[in-house]
Structures are given as structure tokens and as C-alpha cells.
């Protein structure tokens, strides 16, 4: 995928390299925030960056009717958009073990909202880094969590992308503990508003590395 150049998304290899660099910054920030929440070390792997046809997105998580949890984070400000964080539902137990290794009453209350909290923290990191690098004011709105078929969760954001292009920018990351275990996969799909921010941030990174 490294050599993919997407004419539909107008992404050059330079753009994709810069987006990878931005994602590394976001992942580091998200890892620190998740570690503070969990009280243990949580690593957010630097996401792999893919551009792929709309119809192939479900292959990233096992098919369109695979149960999944989607956390949609809308944002507004200088730019309006959405970022979708999609977790395979089967990762729930691993996420709970990762975030709440110590069983306590307080943690048990948080378990139910583990995906929302994780999506919130990941999106916070992305919005903060993108806002800083693109020099745009961005305000995250409350995340919305949905559990359903992965394809159905993706539809709204794919329709948004599909009205502009036939290819999707997808970021695939994993959450790990300090030993590299308890892997939880997360697929991150930015919509066109978010992609514009990535490109503005990428341009800034390239001009002022």
C-alpha cells in the first residue's frame, strides 16, 4: 500500500508520507492520554495508512455484517467534519483488559463506556494535533457510539466520501499493553472535511518540518 497514489483522493505519495507522520504524533498523544486513564502503559501503534476503493473498506475488519462498535466524533469550528473510529466488537474483552487491568468498582462502571472513552481520547488526540498543525480552530462535539454491522456503521461516512471520490483514506491502528499484548484493532476513517485538515497539516509539516 505504500506506493499507492490515489488520483481520486488527489493524494500524492508525499501527502501519504506526511499523513503517516501526523498519525504518529496523534498516536503518541493518544497513547499518553489512554495511559493516564488506565493508570498503566497503553501504546497506540502508529497507524498504517491505506487508500482503497469504497467497496473494499469492509475487508479491513472482516466483512460488512461483522458486529462492530463505531464511535463517530463530529467536529466544528473553522472546518466541519467527522472522524469515525471502528472497533471489531470481538475486541471488547481485550479493550477492557487493556484499560482496566485492575478490577475495581469504579473501573466496572467505566467498562460499559470503554469504546466511547477510547474513541473520545483517540479523537481528542487527532483533533488537537490537526488543529495545531493546520492552524484551524476545531471543537470536538460529543461522540456517538453505535453497536451494529460494520458496513452499516460505515455507510454515512462512506456516502460523504462517495459523493466526492471512489476511494477512501483509512488508518488502521492497534492498542497494545507495554508487553505488546492485548491487541485491539481500530480502523479510523476521516471524512472529506477531516481529509482537508490532514492535507493542510501535511502541507505545513512539509514547509516547516
Amino acid at each position, binding site marked *: 500500500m505504500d506506493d499507492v497514489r490515489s488520483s481520486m483522493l488527489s493524494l500524492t505519495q508525499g501527502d501519504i508520507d506526511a499523513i503517516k507522520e501526523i498519525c504518529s504524533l496523534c498516536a503518541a498523544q493518544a497513547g499518553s492520554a489512554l495511559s493516564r486513564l488506565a493508570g498503566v502503559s497503553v501504546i497506540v501503534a502508529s497507524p498504517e495508512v491505506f487508500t482503497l476503493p469504497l*467497496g473494499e473498506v469492509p475487508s479491513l475488519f472482516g466483512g460488512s455484517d461483522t458486529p462492530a462498535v463505531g464511535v463517530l466524533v463530529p467536529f466544528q469550528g473553522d472546518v466541519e467534519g467527522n472522524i469515525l473510529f471502528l472497533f471489531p466488537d470481538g475486541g471488547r474483552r481485550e479493550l477492557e483488559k487493556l484499560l482496566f487491568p485492575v478490577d475495581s468498582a469504579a473501573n466496572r462502571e467505566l467498562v460499559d463506556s470503554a469504546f466511547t472513552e477510547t474513541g473520545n481520547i483517540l479523537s481528542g488526540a487527532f483533533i488537537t494535533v490537526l488543529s495545531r498543525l493546520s492552524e484551524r480552530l476545531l471543537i470536538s462535539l460529543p461522540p*456517538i457510539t453505535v453497536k*451494529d454491522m460494520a*458496513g452499516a456503521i460505515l455507510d454515512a461516512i*462512506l*456516502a460523504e466520501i462517495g459523493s466526492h471520490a471512489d476511494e477512501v483514506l483509512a488508518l488502521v491502528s492497534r492498542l497494545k499493553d507495554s508487553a505488546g499484548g492485548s491487541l485491539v484493532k481500530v480502523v479510523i476513517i476521516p471524512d472529506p*472535511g477531516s481529509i482537508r485538515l490532514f492535507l493542510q497539516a501535511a502541507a505545513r509539516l512539509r514547509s516547516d518540518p
Partner: protein
Amino acid sequence: MKPAIVGISEYKIAEAPQQLITYGLGSCVAIVLYCEKARLGAMAHVMLPLAFNRDETDKPGKFADTATVAMIRGFEERSILPRDLSAKIAGGAEMFPGSYRGVSRRIGSRNALAARKTLSYYGVTLEAQDIGGNMGRTVEFQTDTGILTVRTLRGARLTL
């Protein structure tokens, strides 16, 4: 016989007894056309309502209007006219009601409306529909019986 799987923005035509299936519809809509006499069915998994004047001739299955027309043309190539067809539609949910920022807000109901209007324009009778709500749907169409089954992860199973 293996079922014909219809992916996002695709349409397929199948003869009995081959089954047509599409998975994980959210705001997308499945449009099914059927000729009972010929036992021939077609299914599209559309993502957007109208192609307008875009040059989308290579992806007619993406839009409700162009997908419907492409399927009707497929039947006409087999000497089946629109008046000999019946239609069923399913999907068109709003998975993140009220919260999505962008042009695809309420896209599900607009997809369904575009499908209904195009079917009506070509004189195809809409026999049944399962549209809206906020749940994903997988739909299976039996070309030998004309029955459309809608499944959700919440355990619901509807026969149209």
C-alpha cells in the same frame, strides 16, 4: 448454487434459483427488481440518491436513479418490460441520528425517496419496503419465490 453477493455500489442480475445477497446496509438502500414470469431478479446496493449530471456511467450501481435504470435496461435486454417487474426496497437507516455533520445527513431517507421516485417514473410497482430506523440490515432475495428476507443484528427477521 452459490449466492450472488452484491457489494457497495454494485448491482447484479440473477436467474432462479440463484440467491442475491447484500450485507450490512446502513443508510444505503437495496433495490430489488423481479420478474415473476421469467424468475429473474436484480439487486442493487446504492449509496447515494441521484447521479445528477455526473459521468458515472462506469458506476451506475452507486446511485439510486442510475442503478434502477441500469437494472431495468438489463431486463429489457432480455425482452422484459418495466410493467412486468415488481420492486422491493430495504435499508435507508440513519445510524447516527441528528449528529452527523455534513451533506450525507439523513442520506438514508433521501436514498429511499430517490429509489421510489425512479421506480414510479418507469412504472415499476413497489410491492414492499423496510426503510428507516437506526439499525443495519442484511437482505437476501430468493429468485425462485420472489421473497426478500431482512435480517438485523438485534435478532429481527422480516419477510417481504
